[in-house]
């Protein structure tokens, strides 16, 4: 399998002086389901957002799908971004628009400005959006306002929105941290299904080891901006866990 993501010596220092990433080197193979572990503030969100330049990295090299992300500007950057789906902890839907319009917004990287201004989309795109909604089991909620959907439903709409981009990679930043355990598992199942059926590479930050073991094919752990563990989910024993999360940590089982 070839590499789809390659990070070389990636640094990020925030304006306030926080050194969030301290030289991250990482290679991700196509089709992997990579889990990112680590405490809050260990740099997981920063790492994911640096990779599509929602946050500007301070230095280092980023290569995604054979494109140099660091030097990309304007149109090229947007072209790179449209093949990277992104899922957020707070779902980040536009709350007063319908589920369908939210899903359609995933296509914005492909359409002209005029289509955006008039909120009009091509018939084929609407059909695709409906089929993506159906895929996450929400086709009957297409006309509902996003605000009126439950947390789990909103996250599934967000997954459908990412699917509209026809992504090669999906970054998921703690996608289940705001959800109850049962809903969390169903959202992870949809991500797992995209990984196996559509061969979409997934990078997902999590706090639950049980979910990491169930869905991840590989785990990396961040601590203070450095990668402190890189291996398979099974390799994480109690000692490794304490290395990552600190001496006082106890693993909480989520089933």
């Amino acid at each position, binding site marked *: 399998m070839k590499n789809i993501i390659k990070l070389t010596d990636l640094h990020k220092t925030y304006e306030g002086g926080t050194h969030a990433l301290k030289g991250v080197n990482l290679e991700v193979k196509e089709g992997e389901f990579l889990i990112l572990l680590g405490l809050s503030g260990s740099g997981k969100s920063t790492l994911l957002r640096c990779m599509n330049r929602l946050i500007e990295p301070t230095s280092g090299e980023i290569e995604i799908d054979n494109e140099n992300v660091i030097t990309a500007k304007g149109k090229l950057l947007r072209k790179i971004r449209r093949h990277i789906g992104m899922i957020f902890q707070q779902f980040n*839907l536009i709350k007063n628009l319908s589920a369908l319009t939210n899903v359609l917004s995933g*296509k*914005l990287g492909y359409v002209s400005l005029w289509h955006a201004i008039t909120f009009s989309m091509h018939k084929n795109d609407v059909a695709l959006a409906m089929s993506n909604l159906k895929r996450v089991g929400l086709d009957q909620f297409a006309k509902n306002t996003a605000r009126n959907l439950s947390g789990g439903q909103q996250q599934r709409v967000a997954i459908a*929105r990412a699917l509209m981009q026809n992504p090669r990679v999906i970054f998921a930043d703690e996608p289940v941290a705001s959800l109850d355990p049962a809903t969390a598992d169903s959202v992870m199942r949809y991500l797992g299904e995209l990984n196996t059926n559509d061969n979409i590479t997934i990078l997902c930050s999590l706090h639950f080891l049980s979910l990491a073991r169930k869905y991840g094919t590989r785990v990396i752990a961040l601590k203070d901006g450095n990668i402190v563990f890189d291996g398979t989910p099974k390799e994480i024993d109690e000692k490794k866990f304490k290395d990552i999360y600190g001496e006082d940590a106890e693993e909480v089982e989520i089933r």
Partner: protein
Amino acid sequence: MKKKCKTIAVIQSLATDLLFWIYIFGCMYYLMHKWSGFTAKLFFVGIAALLATIIFQLIRESIGVKLFLSSGKPKRSVLKSVWGYLTLLSLVVTFVVGMNIVQVDFYKFFTKFQNAGGIASGIFDPSITEYSLSATSIDELEKESLPPDVLKTLKGIQNRKYSTKKVFLEDLQKRLGESTLQEYKSNILQSAYKSNQLLNIALSALAETIFLALLATVFAIPIAFVLSFFAARNLMPRTWLGNIVYILIRTVATIFRSIEAIVWAIIFSVWVGIGPFAGMLALMVHSVASLTKLYSEQIENIDSGPVEAIKATGASTLQTWIYAVIPQIISPYLAFTIYRWDINVRMATIVGFVGGGGIGLLILQQQQLLRWHNVGLLIWLIAFVVWVMDMTSAKVREKLGGM
């Protein structure tokens, strides 16, 4: 380092005391001058202040000492200490001088109410129907065989306009005497010419006011809408160009907003001539400035999550604004805009006073002619419209869930 701090504290303390005593002696001089015509060179006020400063610094009991040089717990309670009394003194002096400068006169307030009697009677008896005796009215009365002397008196006031029925009858009573009036009252009232001319003029002026407020708002919306995006901190990139645009728009909006609409009306009534157009321009400029501020603050309060999400799909900046920013701000924008229209209707009446057209101009004219019953009608009309606007705008804003 510590010594330097001490020196600065001493200077601050001295300066505070000196300013304090200059103010106290200055106020006292003003009062003495006002009451007894006492004059002295201002130089002596300075000398007195300087002396007082030195004396109170030496006994170490002044406001400056208290603020900058005292350490630890106060030895005595506020009311027993010298600086407490000094503060009290300054408050009393300020109050007395203030009363003098503002020319507060309670005697006038309670005894000269009859001066405003004209306006008061106008408000309680607004001119809705005007009465007059036209040539036709007199002819009719002649046919009804009124006595010749009565007819003669009535011919004397032919075509004179009376604002209300009450005013008409009062004048007739003066001219004919009470008993004669009572005898022919019904005949006269029946044949008198009644017109709603003023009411018609007032209503059309009111329409002018409402429409000029509406147009001012409508023209202000698109301008403020576009400007607000460039005046929002979270949307403007932190490059030098972004900063310049942001600061420029914010500053100009603040300056334009701090100039009252009435001042803009004076400027525009010279520019385009007295009339509703000048009033509209005045309100528009003020509305653009206010709405830009309100709108951009609304943008700064939006949830940044959706913006990030849409940006991550590969959307351009403009597409991101359209999809992630506008849906979040549309209903507060509507609420602000309706509120602005409400404010503009209220301001339009004032703007009319200085040449902005509409009902304000009409009030000014009628007031200068001392037609208090007509002024009364106009005041009632304005009150009614403002009340209706206030209620509807509150209801609509409640529905929109803003403010």
